[in-house]
């Protein structure tokens, strides 16, 4: 799988929870040369979105200025039980998404 998410399994309504994600991606700068001197084309995750029960709560525009295998940690208010969806697209147009559920008492 191309990403690992860390999210509290359950939270109290109104509690601010910490969300972490580690994505497998080389974030190519476009400067690297492979063994037979060909430039590896630039390819970085450009947009990243996190929705909570369908509502966008966090969005990021990234670049090769973010290290390979991007790590992101942000926070959100626990509103209601449901599902968080993390989705991203890179320069090569590759789309990926992962989902993680949460119980809010």
């Amino acid at each position, binding site marked *: 799988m191309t990403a690992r998410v860390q999210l509290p399994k359950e939270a109290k309504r109104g509690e601010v929870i910490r969300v972490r994600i580690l994505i497998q991606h080389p974030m190519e700068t476009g400067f690297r040369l492979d063994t037979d001197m060909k430039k590896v084309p630039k390819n970085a995750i450009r947009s990243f979105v996190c929705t909570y029960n369908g509502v966008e709560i966090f969005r*990021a525009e990234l670049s090769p200025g973010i290290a390979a295998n991007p790590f992101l940690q942000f926070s*959100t208010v626990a*509103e209601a039980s449901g599902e968080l969806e993390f989705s991203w697209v890179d320069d090569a147009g590759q789309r990926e998404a992962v989902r993680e559920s949460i119980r809010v008492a």
Partner: protein
Amino acid sequence: MNRRLFVALLLGSPLAARAQSREEFFASFDSEGLVKKVTGGVAAKHGRVRLVLPLLADNGNSVEMKVSVDSPMSAADHVMSLRLLSERNPERDMAVFHLGPRAGVAEVQSRVRLAGSQRVVALAEMSDGSWWMDTADVVVTLSACIDGTG
């Protein structure tokens, strides 16, 4: 001001021969200019934003970064976006994080890539349209036996 730095990097120009001291090197970063390109000429105020980067990084490939803003994150007063700007990376805009009241607190952590020693700028846009900023100088200690890489 930063043209001088890139000229030094480009060719072994006489500028490169005059080795800059560390203070001169960091002073050559035009953070205000970088910010004004984003804010459309409005100067950002220093304060409320805190950018944490290590003083030294052994190499620039993966450097721990934390940026936070002192804000209630209420509907009336919250951080809309948090931007990381680099004057030395090939792409100036390292990242833009779009927050909003649902975030609860304005804090983002990540790992950044720094092309050599440089001054990084964190720029926050608030819901009332005001801009706040912080900067952090990072020395990437991979030392070079040549001039101009600082």
